[in-house]
């Protein structure tokens, strides 16, 4: 871990380096642009919303603001979805919206140099590569860099009402 921190400090001076918040879903490691992250909080007090997709856990009160909570583990079809002490909600800002995403754990803040970011290959149906900004390689680890803007405003997340899909 120390090693990474050193790297981060070193790279922070270089503007082309980007910082990512790394979180885990099951055994996989994902990362999102740290500038999108508003805060990290525990998973609690979520009010269910009827007739919504299963991955939308409901809404919660974030200091007076009603914020929808999305469980990415359900969205990404992970086998084990448990709510425990480690389970956290990353509150992200997407455009003018505030959305909370449930993840298994938040591990790290990483700085990646441009050469560490590889283009994402075309793969699976569960997570279209449209929503990925690339794959980050860090020694023996691989981070899936999620374009959280694109993912959360996509039709399939059903978080945002798009023209024409009203009642």
């Amino acid at each position, binding site marked *: 871990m120390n090693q990474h921190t050193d790297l981060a400090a070193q790279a922070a001076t270089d503007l082309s380096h980007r910082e990512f918040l790394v979180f885990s879903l099951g055994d996989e490691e994902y990362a999102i642009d740290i500038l999108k992250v508003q805060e990290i909080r525990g998973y609690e007090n979520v009010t269910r919303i009827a007739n919504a997709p299963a991955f939308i856990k409901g809404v919660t009160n974030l200091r007076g603001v*009603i914020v929808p909570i999305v469980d990415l583990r359900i969205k990404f079809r992970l086998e084990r979805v448990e709510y425990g002490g480690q389970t956290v909600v990353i509150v992200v800002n997407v455009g003018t919206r505030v959305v909370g995403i449930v993840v298994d754990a938040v591990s790290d803040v990483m700085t990646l140099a441009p050469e560490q970011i590889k283009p994402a290959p075309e793969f699976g149906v569960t997570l279209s590569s449209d929503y990925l900004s690339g794959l980050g390689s860090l020694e023996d680890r691989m981070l899936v860099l999620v374009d959280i803007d694109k993912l959360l405003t996509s039709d399939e997340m059903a978080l945002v009402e798009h023209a024409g899909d009203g009642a």
Partner: protein
Amino acid sequence: MDITDFYDTFFEEAEELLADMERHLLELDPAAPDTEQLNAIFRAAHSIKGGAGTFGFEILQRTTHLFENLLDHTRRGELRLRPDIVDTFLETKDMLNDQLDAYRNEQAPDQEAYERICQTLKTLALEEIGQALDGGAEPAAPAAAAAADPAPAPAATAAPADSPADQAATSETPAQDDGTALVVALIGVADKDRELLVEELAQLGEVLERRGDAQRHEVVLSTSVSAEDIEAVMCFIAEADQVEIRPCQSVAGTAPVTGTDSAPESAGDTAEKATAAPAPAAEPAPATPATDAGPAAAAATTADAGSPPPRQQRKTSAKPVKEASSIRVSVDKVDQIINLVGELIITQSMLDQTVSELDAAADPRLLNGMSLLQRNARDLQEAVMSVRMVPMDYVFSRYPRLVRDLASKLDKDVELTTEGESTELDKSLTERIIDPLTHLVRNSLDHGIESPEARLAAGKPATGRLTLSAQHQGGNILIEVIDDGAGLDRERILAKARESGLNVSDAMSDDEVWQLIFAPGFSTAAQVSDVSGRGVGMDVVKRNIQAMGGHVEILSRQGQGTTTRIVLPLTLAILDGMSIRVGEETFILPLSAVLESLQPSRDNLYAMAGDDQVLQVRDEYLPVVAVHSALDVANARTEITETIAVIVQGEGRRYALLVDDLIGQQQVVVKNLETNYRRVPGVSAATILGDGSVALILDIADLHRLDREKKQRRHHDTRGAHLLPESQPLTEDLSA
């Protein structure tokens, strides 16, 4: 400080002035114009001109200048009003609005339109006043024509424009004014500030004389403004002890005040003074002809001509310094306060909940404090909410014009009356109600009220009546558009509905029939009423109103007229709610929708085809909607006799809503779900409960629709097995 900081204030003020102007113009009776109204219109034009000059909005200034001249002739009876002149005035007012908008958007106003309106005004002035005035005015007329051309040099345009028809200013002669003369002494004021102060004074009245040295500089001012007001203005620049104001007593030194006889002399005098100090640009040349044409006021005009815009003079009678009784605050700030107060209320109720679990005897002071806090918080909330309230006049005031224009276009005779203009409504709602209301007014004029001939034939007075009214009823506001026109034609609506494939029957109640016109697709209906299709875009009206949390009702009698009633909540921010529990979840019902609640018994329940049930309440059979089935709530009571039936009404439809328990009534702060999420079927918004958790506020009408959809879907899924008849598409599905 940058002068542009004041632009917004000017725009808003000018907009209000224009609205005032329009109102007066509309009320004006061309045959016997009310002098007060003419004065009011003149003053509005004058104030805008002054402001426009100050901020350097040249085109606006020149247009208002021409307009003002004409108005001045009108108010002095030199120009006889005719309906078409009033039309021209209204047109000018619209043009001023456009110009204002252009300046607001930092664009150049439409030059062509400007030239056209100037031409119109000038022609009017030439024709009318040319005849009215004696020959002396004739040679001046061409000069006026020249003035209207947007000549680049301000001095060139302003001077001739002022001179010809501009007897306008004459009436403003200080001597003729009610104003008194004051001596304002500036003691030990720096040169630079002194000039500023004198300019300020010139705005308040007529500077008759300046005397004294730098140490003690006296200004003789003829003004209707009180000494206190002058002091109030001066204190922006000078300290209180640097200014000394006393009434002018010296008769000899201040000839102008004595009266008109000495006017020519004083005119020259003042002209010299006015031009000498602050406006070196003014050439003496224009002063001479001006003095010939008009008496003392010429001084003012020359000063006008020469000085750059910021020195625009204001005549004394035009605008006395008004004490500010209100402040302008941006809506964002108000909303922020309202949000914060909402938070405060939630925190307070959270505390309240915690304290209520404590031993009451333990600390009576804490309990006292809590109840005090509760009261204060509530008062604060009410006070803050009232900030956002504006009178309905804000909305209604735009209809006289619309009705006037539309009636003349349609060759109809319509008298508009408005009632309850002072009824207050949340500002955000007033803005959103304008479009639907405009639509309804148009409909009433177009399709409701008949032509004068048809009306006479039907035994009604030729003049149709259109009434706009607003009133409070409980937590709602009722806004009605009432016409005494032909009314809706039940048969035709039914026929049309059949044609468009809607499921209707002759047995439908009138209310249900009227609701049909809100169905989308009904909008193109050809012959619902006499002219064309009432119901043009009525679905849009309904949708807009529903989006505001309200609903529309129609009362109509054939041959006697139609009343369209809009029922809206007073505010969208706070709701009187009833909290209910279903399973482990808490929901809020809007209290306004709740009629009563009761415990259903087997005897009153009747099964209908499929899994539908109806509940008999007294002599009424109400459909039953269970919250747990509509919203898939787990662990809810499914045995119907163990539940509580809340009788609710939404959009004119009544039904029994099954819930597990009633928790209680409370005021809740409405939080929009769509800010960060999306619309949820059956839910209108969310709120935050005392424990900090979120509860959904149910949308009564939408919940019924949702339940129906779900049941239909279930029917479709199981149809093969049960061979159930396909459920009938009911009318409400059309509006879904």
